[in-house]
């Protein structure tokens, strides 16, 4: 009975309340934050183009860093977007080491759009592969904004916070990325019809 209520109380605690509890000495409450966000952080990193091992390493490190720096998060700052910031900053190091040569030339990608009138549905995996190839061509910051907004469905103010951009700058960055994607998609759209 008691544990059930306790469980519900824990469930209802906001991130901020959990952080306060951790700072008061209930350190194992951090486990709840890990449980809440590890899947999202991992998925974000995969969508940023990292492989499983890389994403797994960074996910782990992100939470360790977050714990060690918990005292530095300002009261008005959102824990969730802060986590994404830490993950993205670490991911950057992987990209620096990586050569850009593995990019697939656009011509080899084939048609990329989903045509609603097409009788043969493009396989999900294929579509995914093509989308990833397109995202790979975006500058890192633009990809980050797109992935956070479209795949993680973060509100723009959190995207901005997590990317270290002002709100309108985040929207402009997103706009640029979407225009680029549209430009790359454009020719193949007309090829289909």
């Amino acid at each position, binding site marked *: 009975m008691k544990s059930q209520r306790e469980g519900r109380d824990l469930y209802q605690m906001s991130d901020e309340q959990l952080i306060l509890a*951790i700072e008061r000495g209930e*350190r*194992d409450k*951090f*486990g709840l934050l*890990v*449980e809440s966000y*590890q*899947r999202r952080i*991992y*998925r974000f990193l995969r*969508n940023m183009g990292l492989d*499983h091992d890389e994403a*797994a390493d960074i*996910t*782990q*490190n992100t*939470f*360790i*860093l977050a*714990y*060690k*720096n918990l*005292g*530095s998060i300002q009261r008005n*700052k959102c824990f969730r977007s*802060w986590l994404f*910031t*830490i993950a*993205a*900053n*670490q991911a950057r*190091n992987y990209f*620096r*080491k990586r050569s850009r040569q593995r990019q697939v030339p656009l011509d080899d990608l084939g048609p*990329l*759009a*989903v045509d609603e009138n097409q009788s043969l549905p493009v396989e*999900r995996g294929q*579509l*995914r592969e093509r*989308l990833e190839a397109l995202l790979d061509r975006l500058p890192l910051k633009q990809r980050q904004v*797109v992935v956070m*907004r*479209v*795949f993680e469905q973060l*509100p723009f103010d959190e995207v901005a916070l997590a990317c*270290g951009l002002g709100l309108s700058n985040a*929207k*402009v960055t*997103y*706009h*640029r990325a*979407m*225009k680029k*994607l*549209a430009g790359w*998609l*454009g020719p193949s*759209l007309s090829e289909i019809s």
Partner: protein
Amino acid sequence: MKCPIDETLMIDYLEGCCEPGAAAQVRSHLEQCPACRREYEELAGVRRMMAGPAAGPPDEPPESFWAENARVVAEATYLQPARLERRWALRLPRAAMTGTLAAAAVLLLTLTWLFESGPFSPGPETVPAVVSLEDTPSVGQALQDSLWMLWREMQEFEMAAKALESAYALQLESDSGAAGGELLYPSDYTVYDGLQDLNDEQVDQVIFLAAGY
């Protein structure tokens, strides 16, 4: 005629986060302006494509992966003895507490700069033996060596304190992704990786040196 829809308004409309009034304005403008309409349709097409089946997450790891990840994180964080945290609390203002280890590592980088190319560039006979990060297998060892050198040769704690303070601020910026955050990071260097290599005794020394000013 200049279009009243700028990039941010277009994005607000596309993402459905316009004020209701603004959304109506955008809608009526799109009806009149072929250029904006074309752009909107283009963007909406990309949005649809990404929200479709392709948006699904890449292969998800098995459920056991998450339990294992949570366990490793727990062991590296809240299951660690709280000894150090308590001791720091005695010596450091609360704000500096959690960042101290990281700050100590950044201090090394700051000092390296101060001595190698900054205002404290010395003549050859007083070159401090700041250990190059590249030359040592362990950043933690380099950090410890350098702080010892600082201790023995400098006796400059005021300067060290200032450097530590600004290094700490930069570290915070870097962690939070704000501008200027990349200043002190060499490309593939993780402060925390290095600190993992320290043994307890070394950690004590680092704390003593970094916080003992």
